[in-house]
């Protein structure tokens, strides 16, 4: 890390020295903060009458650490990844959403009431306008 900083500083200094025209800033570089996306290799698309795309990749978001996280990971992920939680805007009240999952979509078939309560408490503790961090 130190080495990178030194290289970047030297480059920046060089750029400063090279900028002969007033008002021009040049030679600034920084470590890319957005990350790389790897290029997919060519795939075998199928044969005979079979059309194939292979397994779909998962890019599941990290949940905030806290009590109940494991329950959320276990139960909510039966039907959908927890990216469905991090994707939402911060909600002041998660109860209507949790109730919708339990009753409207039938989640109560899988999720015991005690676990559902803890899941709601977890969401209120980490994903409201007041509590949401990331």
């Amino acid at each position, binding site marked *: 890390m130190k080495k990178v900083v030194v290289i970047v500083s030297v480059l920046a200094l060089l750029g400063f020295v090279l900028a002969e025209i007033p008002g021009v800033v040049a030679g600034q570089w*920084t470590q*890319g*903060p*957005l990350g790389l*996306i*790897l290029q*997919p290799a060519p*795939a075998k698309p*199928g044969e*005979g*009458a*079979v*059309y*194939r*795309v*292979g*397994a*779909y*990749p*998962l*890019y*599941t978001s990290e949940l905030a650490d806290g009590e109940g996280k494991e329950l959320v990971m276990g139960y909510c992920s*039966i*039907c*959908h*990844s927890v*990216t*469905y939680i*991090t*994707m*939402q*805007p*911060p*909600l*002041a009240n998660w109860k*209507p*959403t949790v109730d919708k999952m339990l009753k*409207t*979509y*039938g*989640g109560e*078939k899988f999720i015991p009431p005690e676990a559902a309560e803890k899941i709601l408490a977890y969401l209120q503790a980490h994903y409201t*306008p007041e509590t*949401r961090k*990331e």
Partner: protein
Amino acid sequence: MKGKVDRRHLLKLLGAGGFLLASRPVLAQTSAQAEAALPSFTGPKANPYWNGVHPYAVYPQKLPLLRMTDRPVQLETPRHYFRTVFTPNEAFYVRYHLDEIPNEIDLSQWRLKLEGNFERPVELSLEDLIKKFKPVSIAAVNQCSGNSRSRFQPRVPGGQWGNGAMGNALWTGVRLKDLLDYAGVKPGTVQIQFEGLDRGKGPENLGSGRFIKSLDLDDPVIEETVLAYLMNGEPLPMLNGFPLRLVVPGKFATYWLKHLTWIRALTEEDKNFWMASAYRVPDTPNGSTTPEEWASGKVKTVPIGHFKMPVRSFIIDPDGSYPLVAGLPAKIRGIAFSGHGRVVKVEVSTDDGQTWKPAMLGADYGPYSFRTYEFTWRPERPGTYVLAVRATDEKGNVQPDTGVWNPGGYLWNKIERQEVVVLAAK
């Protein structure tokens, strides 16, 4: 048939469009700087960005798109892919409700099944569909009901799309009407039901197990509906519904079933979850209500299929990520469409909607297609400007400058704005 474009004529237009596209200068800028990422979420205020704040990810047959959710998968199309009138297949957005979706399909076993109240229930292979029926083509916009949901105030739960849950394609396939005539709809049929291969792990009667939609047999859209096996001239990407997708011109994408495999003639109104409980909107002229009225429990709702997609327009360039220069021409351009029919006018404002000037419209690819527009603006004074764009369709519908509100986050069509900076050149 109303709404249909003669195929040869359309292909000729496409050729011309391709030429124009190739000969116009490319604007490569898509973000001002690469020094910081967007925030990972927006709210409780409205999302201020054109797209949702989702990160890029790579999926089969797709360029890097904005990953809203990964399972079930939902991918948003980045803004700059709307510079062309037809949205490239590899950039076309993806929206599933359920996670058991096909990874492979054996066409030697796959059959489209027409069941229920038909004279001659039939099963058809893809080859049957290609060879036994006359192909038709139609340019049509596919837009998610919840496109732009992240604009709602107060925010509503659901997929937090920016504006990129839409796309325009040339769809080619079989007319639904031809298939219905082939199987013979028996008297007493009230709705035609559609189901694809998508399945989920929840109970099958509650919407988390199956995804099913129905259209009224007497809905005029039945005449215009196509079962597409080509999208922009190529087989559909798996994530857009290979091998066959329902194309319901003018209606929201919730009716455009992917991997379409069952067509059923129903003698009673479909009461399945996806018709009776989901995708319902307040029964008001623009589908809008207020949080207070909704909370009172007295708001009557109807399936979103009762609505055609409201007229919309979008500013694609400039996107605010690069400055304009005083004294130099700047092209303001983008797309417009309406589920009610052709866009006949697009107006541009460079003063935040106080005054409007007509833009030049691009080629007409039929009533359900995107239509491009372009407006050359020559800002003389440096400063910050707010651009706005407003479309009018052939039925006289004009975009409003107020946003709707309903608990599902549907039917957004408020006038779009874009702030731009004009630099001094002296």
